[in-house]
């Protein structure tokens, strides 16, 4: 058992392609966690093993030894949609290695993560990576690190993941500069869950950092936020392959096979304690998954509803931030209203449903949650435009804003400002990171649009234009029917745009000749297939493209 002073928990934060993986590998190699010669073979071997045993536990924290210290390298998820998850990973650390590509300099994601790390009070070690590259100007990168993040020159390390240069110095710096964890070994167990995933064989696996107390194999655990209890199945660490151990002590990181069935029961940020001796207070910082973007998911074939339901349930096993409720739309039938962390998250879920579960989907236009203030003074949260109260009773509608910082080459400032203005963003500040890059700070609307499949929430200024564009689009997309179809856009009760799809005059009269009924029937079957892909709204058949057009309308107005 390591004593607290000999433990260092840290992560590596970097922009994509700034060499995080290569440098991490080099750390494993240099510390002898994975011998240089065997690195390739060993990793392959362990993958082989995983395949054989069907184990898919992913390493989220790797334990290394360096100069008699125990170093835990904690992985962080990459995308901004998962800021909360990144923040929990950071909360499991006392320090962070901030990696900057010598040839690229500071990029948006570098900054976002660095700010997060600083906010969490982590000791940040700036490292300029890829110093082996030709034609780099270290002074420019140093200047950026000084001006945007306030580092001093003597704090900045130089390294190359490729050649291994500077890696030993970095390891020494981690030991020297990053503080040892603090925590009370005698207090009741409090462990931070910084990641979790679903494993087909072991159920939900939680990656934890023990803050107070200790955890032993065979303990009965309790999750403080979700109030679930379970007998833990396995306790272990990654070195870098999974190795079961008997005990995780204060300050250490490792994994727990919880025996729980759904990741929703084991939320990132939750506090794990012992059922027998629970902690009085959970660790700070837990936030239930809060969906920011909402969209309706409907099967394109009504018969696929059970398949969609099944697929969503399976996805939720491994994605605690996916929330959904059954919803019925007049136009689209039975489906679900689902909430997502962001648009990327929505796209990932949509793609997985279509690719992995083979469910044909109609996704309604994503929208955000609006707050409606009614004349009675009530505040109602609306995530579906169809539920908007009668316009007469609404005093105001509030929509979410966010503060956005955009770092952009000075040559692109103009177009970026134009886009921002179209999104009704208010410029708060503009400054220069360096002579070639500007930093714009905005208050920006999160929202684009939509309600029930063909309705959209849009700002008053754009309503006229959106309505007209939408109506003319739909006119082109809705096929002729047995009767005239009038397409109107209305704000409240006032029609602002109107077009008509004239009734179909004739269809294929098709002679039925020489007794060839088969061909006629086949043609009709094709026609029927086409109809199946349409949705009946009242007595009007609306093709899927029409719904998609509504989704895209935001981009064009």
């Amino acid at each position, binding site marked *: 058992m390591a004593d607290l002073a000999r433990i260092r928990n840290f992560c590596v934060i970097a922009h994509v392609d700034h060499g995080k993986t290569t440098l991490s590998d080099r750390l494993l190699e240099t510390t002898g966690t994975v011998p240089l010669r065997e690195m390739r073979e060993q990793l392959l071997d362990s993958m082989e093993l995983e395949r054989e045993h069907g184990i898919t536990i992913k390493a989220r924290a790797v334990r290394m030894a360096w100069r008699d210290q125990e170093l835990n390298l904690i992985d962080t998820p990459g995308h901004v949609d998962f800021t909360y998850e990144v923040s929990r990973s950071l909360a499991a650390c006392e320090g962070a290695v901030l990696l900057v590509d010598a040839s690229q300099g500071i990029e948006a994601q570098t900054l976002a993560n660095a700010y997060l790390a600083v906010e969490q009070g982590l000791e940040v070690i700036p490292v300029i990576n890829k110093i082996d590259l030709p034609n780099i100007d270290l002074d420019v990168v140093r200047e950026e690190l000084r001006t945007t993040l306030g580092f001093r020159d003597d704090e900045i390390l130089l390294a190359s993941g490729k050649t291994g240069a500077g890696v030993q110095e970095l390891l020494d710096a981690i030991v020297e500069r990053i503080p040892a964890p603090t925590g009370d070994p005698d207090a009741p167990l409090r462990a931070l869950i910084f990641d979790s995933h679903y494993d087909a064989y072991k159920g939900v696996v939680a990656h934890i950092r023990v803050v107070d107390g200790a955890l032993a194999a065979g303990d009965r655990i309790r999750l403080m936020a979700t109030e679930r209890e379970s007998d833990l199945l396995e306790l272990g660490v990654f070195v870098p392959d999974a190795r079961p151990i008997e005990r995780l002590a204060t300050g250490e990181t490792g994994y727990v096979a919880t025996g729980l069935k759904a990741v929703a029961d084991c939320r990132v940020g939750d506090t794990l304690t012992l059922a027998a001796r629970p902690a009085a207070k959970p660790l700070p910082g837990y936030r239930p998954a809060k969906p920011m973007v909402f969209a309706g998911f409907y099967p394109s074939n009504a018969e696929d509803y059970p398949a969609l339901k099944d697929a969503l349930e399976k996805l939720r096993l491994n994605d605690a931030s996916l929330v959904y409720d059954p919803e019925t739309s007049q136009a689209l039938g039975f489906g679900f209203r689902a909430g997502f962390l962001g648009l990327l998250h929505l796209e990932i879920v949509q793609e997985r449903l279509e690719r992995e579960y083979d469910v044909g989907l109609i996704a309604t236009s994503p929208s955000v949650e609006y707050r409606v203030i009614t004349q009675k003074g009530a505040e109602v949260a609306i995530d579906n435009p169809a539920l908007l109260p009668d316009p007469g009773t609404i005093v105001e509608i509030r929509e979410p804003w966010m503060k956005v910082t955009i770092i952009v080459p000075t040559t692109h400032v103009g177009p970026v400002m134009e886009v921002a203005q179209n999104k009704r963003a208010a410029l708060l500040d503009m400054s220069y990171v360096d002579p070639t890059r500007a930093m714009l700070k905005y208050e920006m609307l999160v929202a684009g649009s939509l309600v029930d499949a063909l309705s959209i929430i849009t700002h008053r200024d754009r309503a006229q234009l959106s309505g007209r564009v939408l109506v003319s689009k739909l006119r082109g997309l809705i096929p002729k029917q*047995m*009767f005239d179809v009038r397409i109107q856009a209305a704000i409240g009760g006032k029609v602002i745009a109107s077009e008509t799809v004239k009734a*179909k*005059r*004739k*269809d*294929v*009269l*098709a*002679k*039925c000749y*020489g*007794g*060839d*009924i*088969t061909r*006629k*029937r086949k*043609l*009709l*079957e094709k*026609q*029927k297939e086409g*109809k199946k892909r349409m949705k009946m709204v009242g*007595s009007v058949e609306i093709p899927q493209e029409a719904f998609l057009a509504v989704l895209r309308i935001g981009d064009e107005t």
Partner: protein
Amino acid sequence: MTRGIGLYVHIPFCASRCPYCDFATAPARTVLRAAYLAALREEIAREGRMLDRPRIRTLYVGGGTPSLLDPSEIESVARSLREAFDLRPREATVEVNPATLDRERLGAWLELGVTRISLGAQSFDARGLRALGRTHQSQDSTTAFMAARDAGLDVNLDLIFGWPGQTVADWQRDLESAIALRPDHVSCYPLELRLDPEASVANWPGGGWPVLERWRQRTAAAQPDDAGVARLYRLAEGVLGRSGYRHYEIANWARPRKRSLHNLGYWRDRDWLGVGAGAHTHLGGVRSANPIELRTYIAYARSGSARSADLESDPRAEAAMLALRLDTGLDLRRYGIRFGDEAASRVRLALTDVSRARLVRWSGDRASLTARGRLLASEVFVRLLP
């Protein structure tokens, strides 16, 4: 089979290919001509044996261009037919291409017992004939018509409307020219161009499908639009109706007692046998068809039955659709007796749906297409599919 069956005989040969046609056709001079006729005779003989020499109630010789068979060829086919079947048809029709009917051939057909010809006039307008890629002249139709009348035959005139450049006035003149000949029966088909490759292309040497497709794409692009074609159709209904022709099927008009008995058999879902390339059969509730490609047909016909069954056939839906093509419509009481109450109420529900859009009218238990419904028949039929 006391009431007898219909018999359809397909003669695929044509002097030239009409680019809009999508029936089983082949060049008149094909090297396969003798082999085809031999295979056809074999098929006739075999089917006659299998079906125990049934009575043929109606006979229809179609194509292709049956009228270009040589008298000796007509005679040999006729001999096979008489040997294989009890051939006492109430109606026997042969399709005639205006330029190919001469006195000698007509004699051979009369010998077979033909009572009626169907003349592929298509248009009396030189521009129309050219737009359709036809090789005959308007005068040829008149000549052939007179020859048939002289022989005491009933005559049907086939007309095509909706060709590129055709105006309402053009169509009116065509209809009047047709009526002036006082035919017993008129069929008016809108020019419908199939844009997917078809099997009969294999029978023709030369440019193949790409050449045909180019013609069809070009022609389709130049046709009157749907509203224009609908107008032409309505005009035909008016003009022919006023001249004493009953619009008894979507594309067919007839003087009293001159409806095509053979074709009525199709629409009333009766039994018929089809022999020859691409011919369709409906016997004992089973639909089947012969291959369109000549070589395949010949090989199949010689080695056993050429027919392959349509396994996806849906007798309920098909019977309902076919009945609705006729002005007499669909009698749901009788339909219920034949297919059961559940099937009948399904159809009733589907038709109620479209009667709101005025495509179908009801008279008691009988549903029939309205004038609008005839133009939008597919909208009605598609709802009858399971």
